[in-house]
């Protein structure tokens, strides 16, 4: 990559079985994009119902959404759609790919790796707490559901209100066995804190000082920052933030590596993505993180 090349556009793949709540999540993220220009790629428009009030226009298979966001259906040609996204002007800040109900999000994330100018930073899988274990035992789709769960870096457990506390707790125990790698987060009605998927703002309020914790409206999430005035071993930092016991489920920030190069570090659940970073003194040496309580409620 030459010095002039733009930073790759971060991509989060959103997977999960039919009806798990992917559409609810994506509508929620679009509604709370907070100025980020998000491009959503969906398998087909039928599988996602973008809330009508978010849609500002439609042209050539692309929906224009509020706040400069767009939504396109890729059908059989994911790679072609990714190509088109890279050429959008203005460039999207972030891409969300919604896989089909039987799609394997890990495979999609690896395919994103073949497209230049984009980087898959993580796989978020939405799982319906009420029906998950039955689906995973289904004769036809059981193995597909299990593979989706294993592909997850971040697992968003939806419909916990329907499942009830006991079943939700049992599902979490069960998930620790079938998807031990994933960071599991409980959401309310498919509404995770948007930053959990989209990533925290890199320039947080000044009040967010070293070690300080700001309680989010979402009860069991905490946000904080870490500052690095000196170069840091980015690989080691990434490993620390994604270690199995870590309560950090999302992090983002720019730091200087030991060799003096600037890096952008993104953590989604148990995956860290490190890419080259252009100069931006505002965010130098600052990692914003989101952590989740080990025992919610």
């Amino acid at each position, binding site marked *: 990559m030459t010095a002039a090349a733009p930073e790759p556009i971060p991509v989060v793949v959103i997977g999960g079985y*039919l009806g798990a709540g992917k559409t609810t999540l994506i509508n929620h993220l679009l509604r709370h994009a907070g100025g980020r220009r998000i491009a959503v790629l969906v398998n087909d*428009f039928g599988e996602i119902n973008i809330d009508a009030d978010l849609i500002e226009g439609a042209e050539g298979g692309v929906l224009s959404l509020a706040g400069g966001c767009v939504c396109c259906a890729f059908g059989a040609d994911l*790679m072609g759609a990714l190509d088109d996204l890279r050429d959008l002007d203005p460039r999207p800040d972030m891409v969300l790919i919604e896989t089909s*109900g*039987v799609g394997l999000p890990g495979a999609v994330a690896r395919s994103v790796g073949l497209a230049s100018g984009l980087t898959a930073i993580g796989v978020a899988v939405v799982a319906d707490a009420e029906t998950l274990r039955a689906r995973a035992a289904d004769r036809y789709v059981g193995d597909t559901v299990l593979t989706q769960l294993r592909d997850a870096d971040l697992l968003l457990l939806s419909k916990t209100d329907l499942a009830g506390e006991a079943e939700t707790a049992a599902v979490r125990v069960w998930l620790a066995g079938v998807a031990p790698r994933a960071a599991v987060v409980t959401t309310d009605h498919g509404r995770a804190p948007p930053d959990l998927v989209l990533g925290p703002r890199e320039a947080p309020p000044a009040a967010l000082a070293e070690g300080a914790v700001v309680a989010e409206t979402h009860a069991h999430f905490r946000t904080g920052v870490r500052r690095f005035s000196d170069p840091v071993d980015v690989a080691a930092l990434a490993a620390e933030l994604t270690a199995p016991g870590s309560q950090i489920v999302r992090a983002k920030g720019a730091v200087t590596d030991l060799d003096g190069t600037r890096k952008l570090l993104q953590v989604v659940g148990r995956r860290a993505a490190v890419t080259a970073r252009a100069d931006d003194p505002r965010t130098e040496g600052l990692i914003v993180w989101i952590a989740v309580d080990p025992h919610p409620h």
Partner: protein
Amino acid sequence: MAAFTVYRARRIHTMNPSRPTATHVAVRDGRILGVGDLEDLAGWGPYRLDEVFADKVLLPGFVEGHTHLMAGGAWRYVYCGVFDARDPDGDLVKGSPSFDAVVEALQRRAQATADDGGPVAGWGFDPIYFGAERLTRAHLDRVSADRPVGVMHASGHILVANSVALRLADQLRPGIDHPGVPLGDDGLPTGELKGPEAMIPLMKVVGLGAQLEGADGPGLRAFSRLAVGAGVTTATELGAPFSRRALDAFKHETAQADFPLRLVWLLRTIGMTPAAAFDQAVALKAESSDRLRLGAVKVVADGSIQGFSARLRWPGYYNGAPQGLWYVAPEDLRAIYALGLKHGVQVHTHTNGDEATDLALDCLESALREHTGPDHRFMLQHCQLADAAQFRRMKALGFGVNLFANHHFYWGDMHRSVTVGPERAERMNACRTALETGVPFAIHSDAPVTPMAPLFTAWCAVNRLTASGRTLGEAQRIGVMDALRAVTLGAAWSLKLDSEIGSIEVGKQADFAVLGDDPFEVAPERLKDVPVWGVVQGGRVFPA
């Protein structure tokens, strides 16, 4: 003044059991006025006797129930298959029996197009005839060091690209981590690209874009010439996603007086909701013409057996490969069937593995509990691994099946030794079981996956010989009559066209396959060698 034409033939096999053979057929307004001897036909009034087929044998025009127009589009590129083949002009194109021959064929094209300097692309390469050795970018770099070069495998699931092409697509870099992109000892891609995500970024670069699909006027035209050479008067497009532009091109082309084929274009459900697909299918049906039939729907349930993406029941793949992939969620397949029954729209379902077939059976059974579906005629396409119990359920639910008989020859040896093992390989594409269970069936080529040639396809069902000469599944062989019925009336039934085509009898379309020999007189193992003179389509004569 003669009001109709009577063709005299050496023999006419009608596929109509009431009058199985004849010597004369009368044609008026593109339809069959009668078939019998001259005396039977003379009663219709003054006629013109045409002796052009006096030494030929006529069969109903062959119906190919599962093809892709890509079979025509592909010939714009360099043929790289092992076997000799006929191009749309009817010329014999030599096969390339070695890697050197493939490289040389591409080099010839590169030299012939030296001025344009654009990409050089080939198709039809099949690695299974070369043991463990793989075609890689090193081979294709010998074709050109400064032009992109690519070769598509016969399966359509793997593309090989040269170094220039990989560089142009930003794929000749270290650090690629993708199951579809094997790396060499140097950490760089070997040039093999497996599966759509790995292939698509290179397709455009090597010039294999939409043109390969052939879903345009010239592609359809080339496809129709292949059909004439194979004795086919009705064929199908089962893959191309819908576009208004393709539809306009098809309408224009099929309306030409010299267009020799009836095309049945199925609407693929990809990229739209089931409900939207059926609304569109219903609307499209009204846009049909005699030579362009629209209104049926195709859905793909799983992948391919040789690509290990088919969904197999226990005990899975013989070589231990992991389970294949679903391309449709069970809930959606169930919804598609319910909508098809509700709207009276025929649904064709691609299933290769036996688990995918089970899912289709379960979904139709469930949908039928809710909706009635008189003569729904839903079809299972390929359905290669179905066992006898599944055929019994097909019969009970009203499914027809279009079996992929050509697989025995092209991939039978591989199925036996690698994919499904000897026992299941012997029951693949179980024509005999279909026949004995009473499941209406057709057989197909899936061209361009294998060449469109119904006599060859019938030969495969009759002999079940593999490329290495093994008879794979003696018990599933069928007779010549049943095989030829499958490529005529059987396939016509599968398209809901059996009242119009598929047999030579009064009132039907005057569609004939004109053969140089009698397929019932040659030895069954010579069936594929019966020469095709051409076709009569809608009463119009088209020599190959």
